[in-house]
C-alpha cells in the first residue's frame, strides 16, 4: 500500500500548489502573467488528477479523483509545507514555483525509468511541463533578484521566508517509503542543488543557512494555512453530498 501513500504525496503537492497559483488569476502584475500563472496551475492540477485517479485504483476502495481531493481533511493531506505556503508577493510565488519545479523535473526524469507503466506515462508529460516551470519561474527569480533595489530586497526576503521549507521535498513519510515504482526523493538532491545554485548565482542571491528546517506536511502535520485553503476549495463539493457536477 505504500504506493498509494506515495502517490497521494505527489498528488497533494500538485493540487495544493496548482490551487495556490490559481488564486492569482486576474490579479497578476501584468496580463502576460495572468496567462502564464493559470497555465502553470493547469499543468499542476492536470497532473494531480491523473495521480489521484491512479491512487484510487491502487487503493481499490472506489475513491475517484474528487473523493480524494474534496473529501479528505487537512489531517489526511500529505503535501509538503512548501506548496501550501500562501502566495505572498510575486517574488515568493515565483521562488516557491522554482523550488518545486527544480525538484519535480529531475524526479519525473528518473520516473521515466519506472517499472510501472502508469508512472512512466505521467512522468513523460510532466517532465516537459516542469522544465517549462523552471524556465519561467527561474527567469523571474533572476529578473527580480537582479532588477531594482526593491525587487532584490523582496527576492531576498522570499528566500529567507521559503528556503526553510525546501528540505521536506527530499523526504517521504514512513508510510510512503520503499516504493519501486517511484524514484527515491533523496537522490534528487544533487540536481536540485545544481539548478538552484546556478539560478541564484545569476540572480545574485545567497543560499541561506537554515538552522531550523521546517517539515511535517508529509506526516499530515500542517501549518495553519492549509486548513483555510481546503475549507475554500472543498466547500461547494461538500455542501452537496453525492451530487454530480
Amino acid at each position, binding site marked *: 500500500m505504500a504506493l498509494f501513500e506515495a502517490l497521494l504525496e505527489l498528488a497533494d503537492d500538485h*493540487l495544493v500548489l496548482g*490551487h495556490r497559483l*490559481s*488564486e492569482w*488569476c*486576474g*490579479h*497578476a*502584475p*501584468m*496580463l*502576460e*502573467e*495572468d*496567462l502564464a500563472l*493559470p*497555465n502553470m*496551475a*493547469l499543468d499542476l*492540477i*492536470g497532473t*494531480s*488528477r491523473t495521480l*489521484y485517479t491512479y491512487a484510487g485504483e491502487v487503493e481499490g476502495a472506489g475513491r475517484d*479523483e*474528487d473523493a480524494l*481531493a*474534496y473529501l479528505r481533511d487537512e489531517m489526511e493531506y500529505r503535501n509538503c509545507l512548501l506548496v501550501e505556503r500562501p502566495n505572498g*508577493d*510575486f517574488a515568493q510565488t515565483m521562488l516557491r514555483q522554482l523550488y518545486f519545479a527544480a525538484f519535480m523535473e529531475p524526479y519525473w526524469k528518473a520516473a521515466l525509468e519506472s517499472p510501472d507503466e502508469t508512472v512512466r506515462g505521467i512522468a513523460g508529460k510532466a517532465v516537459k511541463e516542469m522544465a517549462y516551470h523552471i524556465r519561467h519561474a527561474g527567469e523571474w527569480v*533572476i*529578473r*527580480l533578484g*537582479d*532588477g*531594482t533595489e*526593491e*525587487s532584490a530586497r*523582496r527576492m531576498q526576503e522570499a528566500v529567507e521566508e521559503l528556503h526553510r521549507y525546501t528540505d521536506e521535498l527530499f523526504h517521504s513519510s514512513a508510510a510512503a517509503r520503499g516504493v519501486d515504482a517511484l524514484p527515491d526523493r533523496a537522490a534528487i538532491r544533487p540536481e536540485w542543488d545544481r539548478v538552484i545554485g546556478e539560478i541564484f548565482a545569476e540572480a545574485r542571491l545567497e543560499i541561506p543557512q537554515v538552522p531550523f528546517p521546517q517539515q511535517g506536511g508529509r506526516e499530515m502535520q500542517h501549518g495553519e494555512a492549509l486548513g483555510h485553503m481546503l475549507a*475554500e*476549495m472543498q*466547500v*461547494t*463539493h461538500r455542501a*452537496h453530498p*453525492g*451530487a*454530480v*457536477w
Partner: protein
Amino acid sequence: MYAQGLIGADGKTGESPEFLEAFQKRIDAEEKIEPNDAMPEGYRKTLIRQIGQHAHSEIVGMLPEGNWITRAPSLKRKAALLAKVQDEGGHGLYLYSAAETLGVSREQMTEELHSGKAKYSSIFNYPTLTWADIGIIGWLVDGAAIMNQIPLCRCSYGPYARAMIRVCKEESFHQRQGYEIVMTLAQGTPAQREMVQDALNRWWWPVLMMFGPHDSDSQHSDQNMAWKIKRFSNDALRQKFVDATVPQGEYLGLTFPDPELKWNEEKGGYDFGPIDWDEFWRVVKGGGVMNRDRIRDRKAAWENGAWVREAALAHAEKRRQRAAEAAPIAAE
C-alpha cells in the same frame, strides 16, 4: 466576453468630402482597412474606443468567474474554468494588440480603464453568487458575446476582424461548456436545480442589456453601420439571441423571469417584456453592486505589480549594458 453595444463613441470627423467618399467606396467594396491606410479620424477614434472597451471587458470579465475557481465543485470543472478565464485574458491580449495598431498604447488604455474614462461591459458589475452562475455566464454571457461578435469577424478594420475570428472560436467553446454545466445542474439534485433557476433569474435581464440601448436611442449607430464597424442593430441581435436561447432553456425545464415572453408565430420570433433601462444606465454609470470592486481589484493588481514591471525593465537594461560592455572585449 464582449463589450455591450458601444457606449459614448464620438464618430465626429473633419476630413474633406472627397476623402470621406473615397474611404466609403473602399468600405462599400468590402475592402479591409489596414493599420497604415488613411482613415477618417472619427473611424479611428471609434475603433479605438470599441476595441478598447472590448479588451477591457475581457480583462474585467476574468474577475467574476475567477471568483469561483478556488471553489469549483470538481477538479474537472476547476481546470475547465481556469482554462476559460485564461482564454478571456488571451482575448484581452489580442484585442489590446489590435487597438495598438491604431496608435494607442496598452498602458494608456489601462489608465483609462482605471480612471473610469473607458467603459467595459456592464454585465461584469453583477456578482457571481453560486456555482450555477458559472454555467449561466458561459451559456448566456458568452452566448450573447458570440451573437455580437460573429458579425465583427467581417468588420471593415482588418486587425479587429481577424482577432474576432480567433476569439469567436473560443467563445463558442465557452458557450457549449457553460450550457453543459447548466444541463448538469438542471438534471441534478433539487438544490442544484434551484441554484441554476435562481442564477437564470438573476442574469437574464442583464444579459439582454448586453446588446445595448434600443436602436431608437442608440447614437452614432448609422455612421458605424456605414463604416461597417457595426453590422447589425442592437435590437436585431437581441432578438436573434432570445430566439436562439429560449428553446435551449425550455428544453432543460428552466423558466425565464419574463411573464411576457411568448412565441409570436406571425413574426417568427419571441415577444419579450420591457427592459429596465434605468437599471442599465445606473450600472453603466457606476451604480452596480460590483462596479467599485471590479475597478479596485484591477487597480490593485496593476499597482501591486508595479515593482515587478519596473524590475523587469531594469533587469533588461542591465543585460543590455553588460552585453555592450562585454562586446569590445570579446572582439579583441
